[in-house]
């Protein structure tokens, strides 16, 4: 079957008088300049992340207040982030697990996982299989907290693509999970998180 398909492609294209060349283009063509206004990457990211209904936070205290206020009191934290974040949550009276149990997927109200980076231009957090502790912990809880380092914010979408590296699975999350399938009305939290938080560490 493979050979038959390649033979049909060759015969279809053999009839072409000229073949289109690969265009030489400058990536700046696809940069959205209004989205990129400003000089500090974290500030640009924050503005655009808010635009897609994400929330940015710069301290664990802020996160604790938010989780208490919204009554999201039990969740998961990447064991590598426990000392920096999970322990403070536990100290403030929240319960934190460092192992995700699939059979209790609905028990976790929040999930704190490591983001590999972010994109300032689009307000996107990047999660990479090689460096994040659990895909499900970033999906099943209502609140997902992506933990970011300031140095990991890419300026543009092309910059983030150029930095893909070797990981077999990379995902960009640009805001909470959402749909407009029912009469075009926007509803957040369809399958994944209804709150997407980027926490700067």
């Amino acid at each position, binding site marked *: *079957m*493979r050979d038959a*398909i*390649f033979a049909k*492609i*060759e*015969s*279809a*294209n053999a*009839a*072409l008088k000229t*073949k*289109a*060349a*690969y*265009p030489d283009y400058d*990536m700046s*063509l*696809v940069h*959205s300049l209004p*989205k990129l206004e400003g000089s500090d990457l974290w500030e640009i990211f924050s503005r655009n992340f808010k635009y897609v209904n994400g929330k940015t936070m710069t301290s664990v205290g802020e996160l604790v207040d938010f989780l208490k206020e919204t009554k999201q009191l039990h969740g998961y934290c990447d064991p590598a982030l426990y000392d920096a974040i999970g322990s403070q949550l536990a100290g403030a009276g929240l319960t934190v697990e460092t192992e*995700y149990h*699939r059979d209790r997927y609905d028990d976790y109200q929040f999930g704190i996982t490591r983001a590999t980076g972010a994109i300032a*231009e689009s307000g*996107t957090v990047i999660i990479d*299989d*090689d460096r*994040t*502790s*659990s*895909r*499900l912990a970033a*999906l*099943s809880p209502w609140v997902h907290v992506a933990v970011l380092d300031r140095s990991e914010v890419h300026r*543009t*979408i*092309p910059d983030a*693509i150029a930095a*893909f590296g070797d990981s*077999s*699975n*990379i*995902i*960009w*999350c*640009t*805001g909470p*999970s*959402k*749909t*407009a*399938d*029912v*009469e*075009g009305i926007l509803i957040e*939290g*369809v*399958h*994944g*998180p209804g709150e997407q938080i980027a926490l700067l560490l």
Partner: protein
Amino acid sequence: MIGTQLIDDYARNISDEKQQSVISGSAAGTNKRYQVLHKDYPDPDAIRKLAASIKDHTLHHLGDYLAKAEQALVSRGVNVHFASTDEDARQTILSILQGHGVTQLTKSKSMAAEEIHLNPFLIENGVECLESDLGEFIIQLDGDEPSHIVKPIIHKNRREIARTFQREGIAADYNDDPETITRRARVYLREKYMQAQAGITGANFVCADTGRLALITNEGNSRFGMAPVGVHIALVGIEKIIPQEKDLAVFLNLLGRSATGQQLTVYTEFINGPKSANQPDGPEHMHVVFMDNGRTDVLASNCKEILRCIRCGACQNVCPVYRQASGHAYRSTYGGPVGAVLSPILFGSRFPELADLPKASSLCGACNEVCPVDIPIPDLLLRLRDKAHRAHIHSPAAIPMSPFAVLATSPSLWRTAMTMSKAMNHLPIQVAPIKPLQDWLGQRTLPDSHGGDFRKWMKNHKPTHKP
């Protein structure tokens, strides 16, 4: 041949409720798209022209790029399969599932899978196969067909959906609040994700240099469908290839904006292999099925530009015929302007039956104007009309054009006809026993003819000042 076209009959017979849903849903998409593109880019036209040239280059060298993508995927531990026909694709997927002992799976929205009617086939063969995109899930519960590429249930309203959920036992009671509907689907589907052993997806793009598949959803359903399972199968049309990862920046920026007015779709996933060794969640086995199913026939046709299509649905949103008739009127997986071109050639054996679709257009050009890969849809529609004419396939036209053709090619006949047309003002044409004419006049008032007046005025007119 005089008569009404099938699509006219369809438009006339759909309920007001359904037509209103389609009209308002498609208009909303168009307005948002314009605003976002023009706010973000000084010259969006240059980007779509670039996208068109990247796609053309890829299609003209498709054999090379497809082989390159295959090689990259294989080198990363992915099983690559090829399927010539829809039947080949269905059998390939079934045998992969059987090989892994899969009896239950979830599937994220894929036009390629719609095209080969994968769900009913897998269910017949004992595999529980559930759609996870909210719209597609509702379509599956109703035994319906999607009517829009991006908004599959554009033709349904909340009341219908609430009734479906109650009937199918997704919810105990009737509730048509969109948020409640969504929450109920959330609870039902996540249980299914966790039970499933495999996830089936399509792919929006495949980068030839690294084999990376780009998979796009707003709901996160494809991400969730694959996180707890051991097997991922991606069914991909061979035209989805792009040369390099860097080209993704061009296409992703265009796709989100053209489809839903978003800069980027919420979940954009890039996959070129099984999960990482240290990752607890995700498939250990990945299969990619590259499918032809008529695409090489399209490539060999004089309408190959339609293979540039990135399935954004913008041409559907803007088309006056689509808005009135809805996607189902196009009688195949792909509705609207893209479907009117693609369906008759992609499903070549059905050409005689679908040859009327290229006539279901006023050639207003709105579809080309919004197309993010600049497909000259009106030109392609004309080429297909010509193809039908040459093959002696005559589908009815609302108004016969051959007398007009005779008049329009002879200046003297035209002049005579113009002068004579004034006689029409005194004829009772509103009662003439010609059905198509009556249908046409039923919704319009014909103004009085002033044939020849302009020519007379022009001839006697003296310029008042020199330019």
